[in-house]
């Protein structure tokens, strides 16, 4: 037990530590984080207040709590599932050499994930509880039960996320090309998740004579533990509380035992270096530029984290036509979209998803301490930035054209629509590739320890995604005001901005690159 506490403390300190004693900047960062956390809490409180008031008018404010519980749990699950790899940690060799049991190591890692998710569920549930007690009557035990629920809610979604991620890792270690198999399995999991979400959505059948039961059924089918949670919080039912806590604790114990059985086997297999016999025919005769491009494309494709986070727009762009190939859009319930409308807005949809796909926003940072290799190469900076932009552009072009081909099989696209889509692919893809690189050049981060820090949590990836999202939303919002030449205008706009970005890279970019220092 002492080892578990020590290890948890060490993991927590190592993950969340910012040296507040060393600089005012670090202190400001913490203040900024706390401020953003509180502001987010206020927004959630306003939404919760609206939901509680609305459900209260129907005489069932507790449905708002069920809703927050169910969606909060699924949100944590979705957030954790692609980033909770228990087996891949840098401290494995150190911990494995110490007299600490595997169960303790696994449990400490699970607790670490749990603490992170606790912060998320607190920001969702605390505002909901405050909104609830402002409006509805509550039992004397409510505050105690609310506290217990906040501590308990993240457990099951964390367990499911870690379990699914671990299963994927365990399966992929049996293959020679582990990373590629892991990426494919993650994609399959994503497709299943989308299908599950669609199925859940279609389960909402409103019975006007018993709205409460309809919603309860929906939330229960969405997340089966909802009924125990509602019964515990609202009806003060101790039996439900015990079941809820019991299932959570039991699942932790079962998962800890399960993972500790596989822990050494999987970590051993991950450590295996696959020996590929060199085939001299494969020694590259390509130019250095081609090799630079290939290096960056491989960097993206061999990292499930990188692919799933930076290319999520492209993945969805391929998945949508595949789904439409099997399902007729006119048959899908709960979606007010016809085939004609979809075709009309298809170029806009392409622009929206492409603008969410920039690997270049991380490619400079991901060089990390190896950036010196690029800086020492006897080649001009223009070739380096061109290779990085081209690598992202190639990924966008391949994914988008695959999507377009499948769309042509799924829908009756006209030649005009095809041309418009191609114009959008070429221009928006070029823009976002250049934009991501410029932002990464201005906001580099070479001091990362895990690539997730760069891919998901760095300033450059955040700015690029937010900008892409805002431009995408603006394009969608304005698409009805420019009916005829809208696509052409977008094409020209993207090309002009891309040209400006190229000028920036040529004139200013190389100076910034020369000053880059790890």
């Amino acid at each position: 037990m002492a080892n578990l506490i020590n290890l948890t403390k060490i993991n927590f300190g190592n993950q969340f530590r910012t040296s507040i004693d060393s600089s005012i900047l670090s202190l400001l960062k913490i203040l900024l984080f706390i401020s953003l956390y509180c502001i987010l809490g206020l927004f959630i409180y306003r939404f919760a207040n609206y939901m509680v008031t609305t459900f209260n008018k129907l005489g069932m404010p507790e449905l708002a709590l069920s809703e927050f519980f169910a969606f909060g749990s699924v949100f944590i699950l979705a957030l954790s599932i692609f980033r909770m790899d228990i087996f891949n940690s840098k401290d494995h060799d150190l911990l494995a050499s110490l007299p600490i049991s595997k169960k303790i190591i696994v449990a400490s890692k699970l607790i670490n994930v749990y603490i992170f998710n606790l912060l998320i569920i607190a920001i969702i549930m605390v505002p909901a509880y405050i909104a609830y007690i402002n409006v509805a009557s509550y039992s004397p035990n409510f505050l105690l039960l609310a506290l217990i629920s906040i501590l308990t809610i993240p457990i099951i979604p964390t367990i499911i996320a870690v379990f699914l991620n671990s299963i994927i890792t365990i399966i992929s270690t049996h293959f020679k090309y582990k990373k590629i198999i892991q990426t494919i399995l993650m994609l399959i999991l994503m497709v299943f998740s989308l299908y599950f979400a669609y199925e859940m959505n279609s389960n909402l059948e409103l019975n006007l004579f018993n709205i409460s039961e309809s919603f309860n059924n929906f939330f229960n089918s969405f997340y089966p533990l909802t009924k125990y949670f509602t019964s515990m919080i609202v009806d003060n039912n101790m039996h439900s509380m015990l079941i809820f806590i019991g299932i959570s604790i039991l699942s932790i114990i079962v998962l800890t035992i399960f993972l500790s059985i596989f822990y050494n086997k999987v970590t051993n297999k991950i450590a295996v270096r696959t020996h590929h016999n060199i085939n001299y025919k494969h020694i590259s005769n390509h130019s250095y530029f081609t090799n630079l491009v290939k290096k960056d494309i491989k960097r993206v494709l061999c990292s499930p984290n990188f692919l799933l986070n930076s290319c999520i727009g492209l993945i969805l762009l391929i998945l949508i036509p595949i789904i439409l190939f099997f399902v007729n859009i006119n048959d899908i319930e709960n979606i007010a979209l016809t085939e004609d409308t979809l075709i009309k807005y298809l170029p806009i949809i392409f622009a929206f998803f492409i603008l969410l796909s920039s690997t270049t926003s991380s490619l400079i940072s991901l060089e990390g301490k190896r950036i010196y290799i690029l800086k020492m190469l006897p080649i001009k900076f223009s070739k380096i930035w061109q290779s990085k932009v081209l690598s992202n552009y190639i990924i966008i072009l391949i994914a988008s054209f695959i999507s377009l081909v499948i769309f042509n099989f799924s829908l009756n696209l006209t030649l005009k629509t095809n041309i418009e889509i191609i114009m959008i692919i070429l221009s928006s893809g070029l823009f976002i590739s250049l934009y991501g690189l410029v932002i990464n050049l201005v906001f580099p981060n070479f001091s990362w320890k895990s690539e997730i820090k760069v891919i998901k949590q760095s300033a450059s990836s955040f700015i690029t995604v937010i900008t892409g999202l805002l431009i995408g939303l603006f394009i969608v919002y304005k698409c009805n005001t420019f009916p005829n030449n809208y696509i052409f205008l977008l094409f020209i706009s993207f090309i002009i901005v891309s040209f400006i970005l190229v000028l920036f890279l040529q004139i200013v970019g190389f100076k910034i690159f020369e000053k880059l220092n790890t």
Partner: protein
Amino acid sequence: MISINNFSKAYNKKEYVVKNLNLTVNDGDICAFVGHNGAGKTTTLKCMVGILDFSDGDILINGKSIKKEAISCKKEIAYIPDNPEVYDHLRGIEYLNFIASVFKVPKDKKEALIKKYGDLFEMTEFLNQEIGGYSHGMKQKISLIAALIHDPKVLILDEPFVGLDPISTHYLKEEMKSMVKSGATIIFSTHILDVAEKLCNKIAILKNGSLVYSGNMDDLVRNKSLEEIYMEIDNGKLN
């Protein structure tokens, strides 16, 4: 004492990294583990410590099997990897406290040993800094201090002198000599044959996963240097 019996390690069913290794390092021995890159040294050391699993043979640490009594064995071992991966966002002192708590080192002893080894390896003034800011050599030193503060009976080191400054190298060698005098067992891998020759009384040479020589250093090195003998063994001239 370390006793390796019929030990083999394969990463997959066909490819053996180490084949049928038998080696004994007694209490009071310093054994150099020598071999070319990819010979299987690190794999063997990791199996001795329990980082890697293995199916064939057994490794005994002071008579206990690392396979069957892993925790009990690890309590007697200190291991320093070739590339120490320590928690970058922890301060040096926090890391040492953690290791000391895992090995249940009493507070007084812990403080005395951290001071002793901190001063010896010139790390005391850096213990309050985050490990992420340390150089490779400093990370090596903090790993060494962490290894030494729990008084291990068996010391297993993977290329311990890489990245260390001359003064620290000297003190590490002196510390190793002092440890074996009090009955500890030490095995370390190295490519620096001069150090191996002067420091060790035992040597084991590994080639392509097989042990090609093991025995007393004095028996091997008589009229020639270890480097010359190693070259002959590697070329197959000496068996």
